[in-house]
């Protein structure tokens, strides 16, 4: 019987990919385990093996086609004497893409139906507060981070990148792709998988006149190194009476990716934001990512830079030029509104914007604030907005107890109590370790629908 070959998911966050190359043609006999195609994900080009045996009855997607959604039929395998036409009517292929340049890496087992939970506001909503008339170009968060590092490394020889797989592998998430080629192994340093040790070495190097960027493959692994982040990096300036601090950036993906379970899905925003001596940035857009990372690298203090794997492949407008930076402690008003203030950061900003769009349909105008940095935090922008809207809902992915939202609620209560028409409501991730099951994971994460419900409750609607 004929079988359809479907576009595979080749990483936990892959939603679509490019069919870079067919290695078989119609009429070929394929065996199970035979490599039949090369598929380019947002991270790498992977070999794709046939699971079933048979004859290639039809190739449904042309070589070079980009944007092929996971689970789209890409070929039909038939048994001897069978016709492919009986199985499927071939869809029209979409436009061909640029040829793949990324190196092949070993295939990870395909998660059959990995579906990251991402909210994206519809087209037309502002994605940032970039000034009118600024020349921009479209780039992904991944490209923005890479460009920020490359520009700062070009400008300052003491800036270097270290971490697991940052060099020869080109980055576990391809953030550092190409940096080894440009800067060499002196400045792009592959480490063994020993976070405690290499983080201590990086902090020591920051005292010795260098400006390290430490990439954690994810912030979950930074827990092994948290003693050096807090006791060695954050406290030394104070303990030395101002003699020596640590100009160092700790960066990497933070928070939930998709279907990677409890040990790989945690938002550390509130943890690090609790520590005096640290600065904490958490970008939402590519412009945030570039502008904030450049500021982080130039900062003379230890900076925790919390990225998000799901956002890496998202595209935004970013101002062109090497001199674009975003100062710390300056929130961005992503959407103006008069009825309620939504305060968020990182991926939560997307959820808040999506909720605002829904609310607008019901006549509720939400003001959406993207904090961008959590230490320092831009209280003034939040308080000014709450004084205008008289209502506030906070949005974050982290756990509810001791959350950033808790801190904001407390601050608003202490400094703007008389302006409030309703209690501040905090929307957070659920108070559970992240489950693996798709339905439970969805339930554990914050969603735009929950934000809409929270806003209606504070608006008494």
């Amino acid at each position, binding site marked *: 019987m004929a079988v359809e070959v479907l576009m595979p998911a080749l990483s936990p966050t892959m939603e679509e990919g490019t069919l870079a190359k067919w290695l078989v043609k119609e009429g070929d006999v394929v065996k199970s385990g035979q490599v039949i195609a090369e598929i380019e994900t947002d991270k790498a080009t992977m070999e794709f093996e046939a699971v079933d045996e048979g004859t290639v009855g039809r190739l449904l997607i042309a070589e070079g086609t980009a944007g092929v959604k996971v689970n789209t039929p890409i070929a039909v395998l038939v048994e001897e004497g069978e016709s492919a036409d009986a199985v499927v009517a071939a869809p029209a292929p979409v436009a061909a893409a640029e040829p793949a340049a990324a190196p092949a890496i070993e295939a990870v087992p395909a998660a059959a139906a990995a579906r990251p939970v991402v909210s994206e506001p519809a087209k037309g909503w502002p994605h940032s507060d970039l000034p009118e008339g600024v020349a921009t170009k479209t780039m992904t968060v991944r490209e923005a981070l890479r460009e920020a590092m490359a520009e700062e490394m070009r400008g300052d020889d003491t800036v270097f990148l270290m971490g697991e797989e940052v060099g020869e592998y080109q980055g576990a998430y391809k953030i550092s792709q190409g940096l080894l080629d440009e800067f060499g192994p002196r400045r792009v340093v592959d480490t063994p998988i020993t976070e405690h040790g290499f983080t*201590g*070495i990086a902090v020591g190097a*920051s005292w010795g006149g260098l400006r390290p960027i430490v990439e954690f493959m994810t912030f979950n692994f930074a827990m092994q190194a948290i003693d050096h982040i807090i006791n060695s990096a954050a406290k030394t300036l104070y303990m*030395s*009476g*101002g003699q020596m601090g640590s100009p160092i950036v700790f960066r990497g993906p933070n928070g939930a990716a998709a279907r990677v379970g409890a040990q790989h899905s945690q938002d550390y925003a509130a943890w690090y934001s609790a520590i005096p001596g640290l600065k904490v940035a958490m970008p939402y857009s590519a412009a945030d990512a570039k502008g904030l990372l450049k500021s982080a690298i130039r900062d003379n*203090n230890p900076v925790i830079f919390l990225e998000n794997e799901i956002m890496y492949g998202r595209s935004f407008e970013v101002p062109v030029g090497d001199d674009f930076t975003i100062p710390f402690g300056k929130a961005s008003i992503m959407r103006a509104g008069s009825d309620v203030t939504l305060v968020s950061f990182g991926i939560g900003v997307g959820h808040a914007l999506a909720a605002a769009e829904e609310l607008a349909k019901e006549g509720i105008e939400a003001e959406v604030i993207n904090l961008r940095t959590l230490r320092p935090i831009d209280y003034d922008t939040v308080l000014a907005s709450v004084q205008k809207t008289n209502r506030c809902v906070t949005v974050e992915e982290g756990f509810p107890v001791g959350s950033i939202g808790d801190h904001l609620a407390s601050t608003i209560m202490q400094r703007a109590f008389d302006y409030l028409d309703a209690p501040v409501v905090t929307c957070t991730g659920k108070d559970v370790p992240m489950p693996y099951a798709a339905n439970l994971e969805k339930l554990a994460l914050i969603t735009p629908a929950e934000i809409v419900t929270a806003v209606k409750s504070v608006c008494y609607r």
Partner: protein
Amino acid sequence: MARKPDTRPNVSKDELLKYYREMLLIRRFEEKAGQLYGMGLIGGFCHLYIGQEAVVVGLEAAAKEGDKRLTSYRDHGHMLACDMDPKGVMAELTGRIGGYSKGKGGSMHMFSREKHFYGGHGIVGAQVPLGAGLAFADKYLGNDNVTFTYFGDGAANQGQVYETYNMAELWELPVIFVIENNQYAMGTSMKRSTKSTTLYERGVAYGIPGEQVDGMDVLAVKAAGEKAVAHCRAGKGPYILEMMTYRYRGHSMSDPAKYRTREEVEKIKTEKDCIEHVRDLLLQGGLASEDDLKNIDKEIKALVNEAAEFSKESPEPPLSDLWTDITV
């Protein structure tokens, strides 16, 4: 404990007098710190270095300007040995503005950029990767400085030490790992905490050479230090020195040291004391008279008293300092 080698080395009078003076300064300073602690002028934890003086004095004799050093919380001796001002160290112990950290660090957390002293670290073993990181920076910047990274036999069982050994040898970092083996990790003897007690051999798995040294003999320490320094400066990577030493006092001021016998301590003091050793070499070799040494004793005593007076007179930090030096 390793045996003392034959101590008839070819060493000058000036050199011996220098070691005598430096070791004596540390001992008298620490005795005074103990006294001030008893008077309530020093608070919190206070870990004295008495007994171990030959280690830092011998290794400083092998260092050059630009070399770096850092250690654990038992750090007063290291600071005095690298020529930091006794007044600034003592005033930090009393939590005063004249201290090296303006009173905000305390006994365990002092630094001096000027003297290349990078702390003073209160978390056991943390200074080991930090020291390798300083060496990483020197190698990156292309100079020939080395970093002396001191830690104890207790820290030698920490996982991060071995993560660091691996990277230090992999990247050929100019770092000397100095294990000050005073036989006790707080109250736990080597026998009770450590299966393989030859700590200098633990670099073998990483290809790092190491040797055990009589840490009570300042000349043996210096000779070993010079060998290690030459290895590092030649770009051959790290080196391990296990200094067999002994602390006379408890782990900290609040430790009665019931885990060892009085006889054990007395035996070391009588047979192995590092200051008596140099004193004997000076007197028996006819290089100094009793009067010469008495004069040095007086001079050191005055220096320590001056530091103690400064540490009492220096004001406490202004209350506004609570909020300074958090970020720059």
